[in-house]
């Protein structure tokens, strides 16, 4: 047993050393993405908060997603980003109003219940920036006829818009 202890210790020290070496390269955004972000966020009227719920152990996908959100927050003083990296389970996800992680919540003065699951890049980026703008303006931009139809609702509706990456 006395002989085993140092070996175990050496093993864990080796594991720690190898874990430390597992790092991801910081993802780079394209000039096109930066331009789209700059254009999309120009002259926002009111503050918008982005909450990014993510596992505490990063993956290549979450790092890319986080880099995109950080760039969005950097490009406008009206956008605040809160990264909530933690060990999420379904009970805690329910508590904060998300279905799973990673998740992006877009909220303005009030929470409209808009959640993104999956990085809003590619063509989705422009759509996402338009959502940020609409939340900032607190205006849906729907036509009068559509607004009148929506006003008839008296029960909760949960929509899931399933989109594909581009």
């Amino acid at each position: 047993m006395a002989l085993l202890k140092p070996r175990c210790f050496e093993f864990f020290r080796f594991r720690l050393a190898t874990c430390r070496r597992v790092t991801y390269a910081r993802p780079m955004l394209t000039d096109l993405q930066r331009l789209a972000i700059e254009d999309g966020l120009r002259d926002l009227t009111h503050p918008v908060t982005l909450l990014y719920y993510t596992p505490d152990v990063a993956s290549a996908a979450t790092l890319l997603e986080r880099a995109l959100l950080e760039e969005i927050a950097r490009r406008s003083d009206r956008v605040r980003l809160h990264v909530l990296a933690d060990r999420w389970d379904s009970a805690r996800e329910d508590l904060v109003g998300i279905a799973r992680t990673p998740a992006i919540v877009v909220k303005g003065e009030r929470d409209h219940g808009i959640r993104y699951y999956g990085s809003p890049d590619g063509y989705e980026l422009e759509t996402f920036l338009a959502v940020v703008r609409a939340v900032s303006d607190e205006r849906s931009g729907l036509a009068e006829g559509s607004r009148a139809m929506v006003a008839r609702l008296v029960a909760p509706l949960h929509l899931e818009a399933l989109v594909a990456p581009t």
Partner: protein
Amino acid sequence: MSLSARLAIESPWITTDVVNIAVLPYLAVRYGVDNVPTTVVNGKKACVGVLAEEEFVREIVACGLR
């Protein structure tokens, strides 16, 4: 801009998840998605493909009034 997100901004009764099915492919299987975008309302497939605003809103509101 995403019509489902616009609806969420317009009405306190509506919440919206925008889901990339590449990240959550099991949802595509669960709802039998063979075309995108597909909109699911309260767990039931409601609209498939890109619809004009008026048509989309009519479909969604109809789900809520059924």
